[in-house]
């Protein structure tokens, strides 16, 4: 079904969703837009290009507490931190980010051990995908076309949204989405004109061009493997890299984490926090040996992991071309350019 | 129940700690709120100790060292003076009340002065109230 709401009435829609569960939507912050839990429906802001941090935090929070314990007390007395079973609405997710969830599912929701935290959150979430504004120019950093993703792809969303001048159109893509839309009273049925606009937008989305290079993932994966020992190349492309970790934190597909036991006096919490292979001590071993002390080794690891090892193990590149890494990099390193250059070596 | 502050005192071994001992042997009375930790020299003090102490719930931090010029290691307290002065400015700019961190030069023979400083500082912290800004809330 296709529903719609006037743009001024989006706060009403937000309030309705807040009644049903937790609403995570883009809000304007000092440095740009980011997904946040909405407490005030007026704060929902769909006038953005893309958020600074990716929405992976909805399923894989930056910090997640697991167990609270007391040193000196038996393990059986440790308390598991309960997960909030409320439904979650992820509102305003761009198609490239929606695609990233299915790639992340490989690690958290399949392949052996299921991560209960990720999978529970995933089950409880309804995803409102949101088409890029085809009337505005594409950001120079994006390259999701190279990864087979287009500006108005509905795949992976439960509901897909397209903005017109006056309205927000919402189409149900999955049964979950359909059920939800049917129950939202602030929405009205869309007419034939809207249906046409919606379908055309999906079509036009396929023609909305980002930077593009033909990335045949097997070719790229093999080439990266072949130039692994080309220290000159890797030193050259990493010469500017600060090895800070921003690219990892903003990336929708990076999933490394560290488990820490943070104890103060006798009380503590076991939690997981995001980790980054770009950090100097990421591969520091208990013996003191660190196989990746040089920046070029770490940058090579990052690129190889996403474009080579991930392809070999899981059959898909661990990147959706959202451009966040390039936009956030303090020294303007561009992963797309490095992959391109690597092909030419 | 009135507020009894918890104050961390860091005293250098050769002067202030010895001065504290003197205060003890001369049976001087002073408030018991200061928990004293002994270091060999005031320049041993890593400013992170001060930040950590505040995070762990100290209501005030008092550092005691030898008078400049009299350091047992000649120059230690001269470095400490500069270093801890910047720490003080940092805490103040962050918004921690300046009265919560104090550096005093107390020599080994100044038992009276030690008791006096403890008395003064404890009263000052009592007036400032519990330190809640940096304290880690459980």
């Amino acid at each position: 079904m296709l529903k719609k709401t006037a743009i001024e009435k989006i706060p009403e829609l937000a309030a309705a969703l807040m009644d049903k569960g937790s609403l995570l939507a883009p809000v304007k912050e000092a440095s740009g837009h980011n997904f946040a839990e909405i407490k005030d429906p007026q704060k929902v802001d769909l006038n953005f290009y893309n958020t600074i941090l990716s929405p992976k935090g909805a399923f894989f929070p930056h910090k997640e507490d697991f167990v609270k314990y007391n040193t000196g007390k038996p393990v059986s007395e440790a308390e598991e931190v309960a997960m909030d079973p409320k439904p979650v609405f992820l509102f305003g997710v761009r198609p490239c980010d929606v695609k990233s969830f299915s790639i992340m599912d490989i690690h958290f929701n399949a392949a052996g051990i299921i991560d209960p935290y990720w999978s529970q959150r995933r089950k409880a979430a309804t995803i409102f995908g949101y088409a890029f504004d085809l009337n505005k120019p594409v950001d120079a950093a994006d390259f999701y076309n190279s990864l087979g993703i287009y500006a108005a792809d509905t795949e992976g969303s439960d509901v897909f949204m397209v903005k017109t001048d006056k309205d927000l159109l919402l189409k149900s893509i999955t049964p979950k989405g359909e059920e939800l839309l049917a129950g939202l009273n602030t929405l009205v049925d869309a007419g034939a004109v809207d249906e046409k606009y919606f379908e055309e937008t999906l079509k036009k989305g396929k023609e909305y061009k980002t930077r593009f290079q033909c990335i045949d993932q097997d070719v790229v994966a093999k080439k990266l493997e072949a130039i692994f020992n080309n220290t000159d190349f890797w030193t050259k492309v990493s010469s500017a890299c600060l090895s800070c970790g921003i690219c990892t934190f903003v990336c929708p597909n990076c999933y490394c984490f560290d488990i820490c036991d943070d104890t103060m006096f006798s009380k503590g919490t076991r939690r997981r926090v995001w980790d980054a292979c770009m950090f100097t001590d990421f591969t520091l071993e208990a013996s003191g040996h660190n196989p990746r002390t040089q920046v070029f080794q770490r940058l090579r690891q990052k690129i190889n992991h996403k474009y080579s090892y991930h392809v070999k193990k899981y059959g898909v590149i661990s990147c959706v071309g959202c451009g966040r890494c390039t936009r956030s990099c303090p020294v303007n390193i561009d992963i797309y350019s490095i992959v391109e250059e690597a092909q030419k070596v | 129940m009135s507020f009894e502050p918890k104050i961390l005192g860091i005293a250098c071994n050769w002067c202030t700690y010895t001065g504290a001992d003197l205060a003890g042997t001369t049976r001087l009375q002073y408030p018991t709120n200061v928990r004293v930790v002994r270091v060999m020299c005031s320049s041993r003090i890593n400013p992170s100790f001060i930040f950590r102490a505040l995070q762990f719930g100290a209501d005030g931090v008092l550092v005691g060292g030898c008078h400049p010029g009299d350091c047992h290691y000649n120059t230690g307290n001269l470095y400490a003076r500069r270093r801890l002065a910047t720490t003080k400015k940092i805490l103040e700019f962050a918004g921690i009340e300046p009265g919560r961190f104090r550096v005093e030069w107390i020599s080994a023979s100044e038992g009276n002065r030690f008791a006096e400083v403890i008395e003064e500082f404890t009263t000052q912290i009592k007036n400032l109230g519990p330190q809640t800004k940096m304290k880690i809330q459980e």
Partner: protein
Amino acid sequence: MTDFKKIEENLKKEAKRLLESGEVAVVLAYGKGFDEQHPMPYAAKSVADVENIVFNEYCTHNMARYLVRYPQGTKIAIAVKPADSRAVVQLIQEEKVKRENMVLLGIPVSGMKNAKTGEAIDSQTTCGMVNPVLYDVLLGEEIHGQKAASPYDVLAKYEAMDHEARWEFWKSQLDKCIRCYACRKACPMCYCDPCFIDQLKPKWADKAPQSPGNMMYHLTRFQHLAGRCIDCGECSRACPVDIPLYLFHKKVAKECEEMFKQASGMSIEDKPVLVNFRVEDSDKILE
């Protein structure tokens, strides 16, 4: 108005000369990024590399950051804007690099722009100086006659706040921190290996991106940079959540200047203020 094209020309000329003659092994300058507003730090190692060098108003990176990556003794030429030259001076003071191994290509410049916001960069977020303090070759005309605003004027508003307001401000700013450590990596003075925050014995702060760890990390970093920060503003430009770190660093720099009568990174004859003392130091600084 700074002639960026001319500076780029001169930079390329000097780089070519230095690399051709073998006087230096590497020239640290700027190169093309994925578009004109996003140049990248660039290390030219051969004459062929020189043609990739660019210089424009978006070349805000402090190349001194990369000096410590090269083995001691490497002969390096480095393009330095005013604050960057102070960074090199400070590193010489701290004996991380030797003066005789550096060739400083000084760039007098005014009118740099922040690519993220498009705003002009001035003394409100950096040291505001327009001429390098140390150089071997000057790539452009020295800039005279510009009214120099004090780099500490921007602090007045925060110094006027009472303690409660200041704490509120800093707590809310530092709580935004996601612990990406870009500030540390962008800073030319943060070269400690291992950094205190990565140490487990003792563990100064936990890794979670929230206070108290955030507060501990930043306050300690402000302390570690006391008297060393040269106010280039890179930390704040690198920050993905826009924490105004430059404000705090400026305040500490201002206090150090007042207390110890020495600004950081001005002369290679100076010793850094916290590894020095003067007999005239007064106890007043502890009040």
